[in-house]
């Protein structure tokens, strides 16, 4: 999972079932070429800042998009977001929050910290697939990251 080629999607999701569903949805839309899955916030930060298990990575090799759940063990999603958007090297990485929480405080706080999209996971799988497809298409294919 940690090859040297550029990771396109970093999926941060602690629930394995949700992760599987998300991966399936991405695959269904042929977007699962290069996906790295991490199960908690700490691991996510390690990956992004090339620390710990990911120390051989380079921070400069940024993913094209980070799909981030908010409710995570150890370090929660908002902390991960804050860490990324607080560092000039990682600030440019697009972050899409994909979460079950419709809590307004979560939405507002996420946008305050600089999230690029906030998507509530639909319970209905069909709608879920449609939502994942939309975000993948937009951030991976249509969006032009700076200096990419």
């Amino acid at each position, binding site marked *: 999972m940690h090859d040297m080629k550029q990771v396109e999607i970093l999926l941060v999701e602690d*629930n394995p*079932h*949700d992760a599987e*569903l998300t991966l*399936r949805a991405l695959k269904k839309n042929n977007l699962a070429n290069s996906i790295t899955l991490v199960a908690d916030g700490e691991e996510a930060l390690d990956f992004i800042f090339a620390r710990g298990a990911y120390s051989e990575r380079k921070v400069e090799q940024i993913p094209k998009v980070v799909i981030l759940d*908010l*409710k995570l063990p150890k370090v929660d999603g908002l902390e991960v977001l804050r860490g990324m958007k607080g560092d000039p090297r990682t600030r440019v990485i697009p972050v899409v929050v994909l*979460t*079950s*929480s*419709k*809590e*307004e*405080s979560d939405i*507002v*706080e996420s946008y305050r910290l600089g999230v690029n999209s906030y998507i509530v*996971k*639909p*319970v*209905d*799988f*069909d709608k*879920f697939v449609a939502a994942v497809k939309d975000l993948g298409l937009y951030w991976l294919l249509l969006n032009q990251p700076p200096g990419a």
Partner: protein
Amino acid sequence: MSERDVPVNPRFMKRRYLALLIVAVFATLSTITFYICYQHHAIHTEQTLKGDRATANLLALILDQHFKKIVSVMESYSKRPLLLQAARDRNAEKAAAHLISLTQSEPDIDILIITDRKGTLWAAYPGRPEVLGKNFAYREWYQDVSRDWKPYISDVVLRVVREKDLAVQISVPLFDETGEVIGIMLNTQRAIGLKNLFTDVPLDPDASISITDRKDQIAYSTRYDYEKEVRPYPFRSAMNKAMAANNKTFAVEESDPGGRTRYITVTPVGAIGWTVLVGRDKRSIFLSETTYHAQVAAIAFLLFLSIVLLFVYARKQVMAQETLKQLQAEKLLRESEIRFRELFGRMMAGVAVYEARDNGEDFIFNDINPAGESISQVKRTEIIGKSVLEIFPGVNDIGLFQVFQRVWKTGTAEHHSVSLYKDKRIFQWVENDVYRLPSGEIVAVYADVTGRKKAEDEIKRLNAELEQRVIDRTAQLEAANKEMEAFSYSVSHDLRGPLRAIDGFSRILLEEYSDTLGAEGNRLLDIIRTNTRQMDTLITDLLAFSQVLKSALTVSRIDMTTMVNSMYHEIASPEVRQRFVFTVAPLPDGAGDPALLRQVWSNLLSNAVKFSMPGDEPRIEITGYTKKEMNIYSIRDNGVGFNPAYIHKLFGVFQRLHKTDEFEGTGVGLAIVQRIIHRHGGRVWAEGNINEGATFSFSLPRKEADHARHEAGGDSAGGGQSP
């Protein structure tokens, strides 16, 4: 005069004033009396003299008439032819008959004689043979009458015959047919006979009457002896002076007796040169007024006595009133004294009275009340006259002694706030109010507030405790709120994960193993997915319901008509709108949180649409009106309605009156409506019957301020939770 003006020594002032008043009254009355008498005297004198003038005029007239009558009678006889014949013949006998007749016809005629032209007497009556043939040409009367041959009245003469008294001679010439004087007829009358002329004239006894002749000799007088000698009138020079000055009355000083003043009124008698004089003693006028003077004096005296009595009476009255007032004042003073003594003795506060010594360097006890004795644990008898520093050595430490000095110097009362007084005997909290009395004494009113102080401290302690408890409770409440928040967060987040997994993997099963599962397997998986979605809706609604409490109210004015129309368009699809008859009456503008009220209308309108009767022409009517301080809005439909028996369940959470397969829904909508309206300070109610439609109504306060108040007083749990 007034007693009230001189309250210090009214008796003394009064007596002095009274004496002065009496003197003043006496002087005034005397002056008035004297003036009245004087005026009366002047008028009376004038009137008396006027009477005298009338008398004199009358007498002069009578006298003049008398002489004229004598003369005319004599003249008539003198023209008798027989008498003239006798005269020519010098026949004394024949003449005598005429003389007798004349004498008898006129009683005033006394002696009658007839002379010839040369004055030789030839006839007389009564007969006087001794004088017959005697010539009287030397006599004054002959000279006077022969001057013009006119009747003549002589001055008084003393008769040489008979009584030899004063007499008047009246002579008339005798003329013959040719007018030749042939003799003189002479009549001699006694002066005393004049008296008879005046008998019918009423004469004032105080007045004297005199008559003078041309030589100012007295011819008749009621005052002077005149009968036996010819006497000159004593005041003839004054008389002549007055007549020359045409004065009717003149005053003379009598030489005898006593030099009294006489008023004399003078009047001439016709043309004969005689004068009538009416004299009167000046004093007699005054004496005649005595009665009048006595009356006036008596009246004045009575008046004086009345006034004096009135004054004395008035003074007695005033003095009596004064005494009464004094007695009343004394009584009031006694009562006041008793009242204050009682007050002093029974009041709860301690009262101590001090007197300054050594120019305010020390204060000694003058008095202390029983409350003071018990508070300070002293005995009145033992401390009177002693220094405050000796009895209460601690007064210096709490600054009370300095207060005493200040109050004694300035006279401004001071409050000495609660202080802890300590000495060897006493340990207590005291509060003092210090005054200066008009006498210069210092009064301290004080109370032992040790009990109160303890109570206050206790209250302070309890307050602090209470405050701490409030802080603790608030913290607990906040913690509970946090927990609640975390709970709903978990619900929204964690309950959804499994659901999504169930739905997602069911879908995957359907997609990838559809053939293996068979028709029944596919149907069962669909049921699983349906229930999953239903659960998701439930969770969503539940979250929405709890959300209503969390956000703060943002109250503003709302155009309700517009809001209702826009919400209807939002919740109803064009197909639905075509099917429904939707009417909105003009609604009163409301005041409230727009987002929450949109939710209300959304839920109510959704319900109305949802519970419409299939087939019929569905209707929705919105109405509104204002009642007192509330706006009331209603939404009526002609849908399936509800059983009024369950009306209490309508607004409960997850309460449904219809089966799920008839109408979708979680049973949260109306609960949310009720929560929102309650948060606004309003009320929600419903009316309806099965298959007869339903009417839902809610009320909202008209004023925005009322919402704020409600918000401030209400939901503390929901407040302050904004993101």
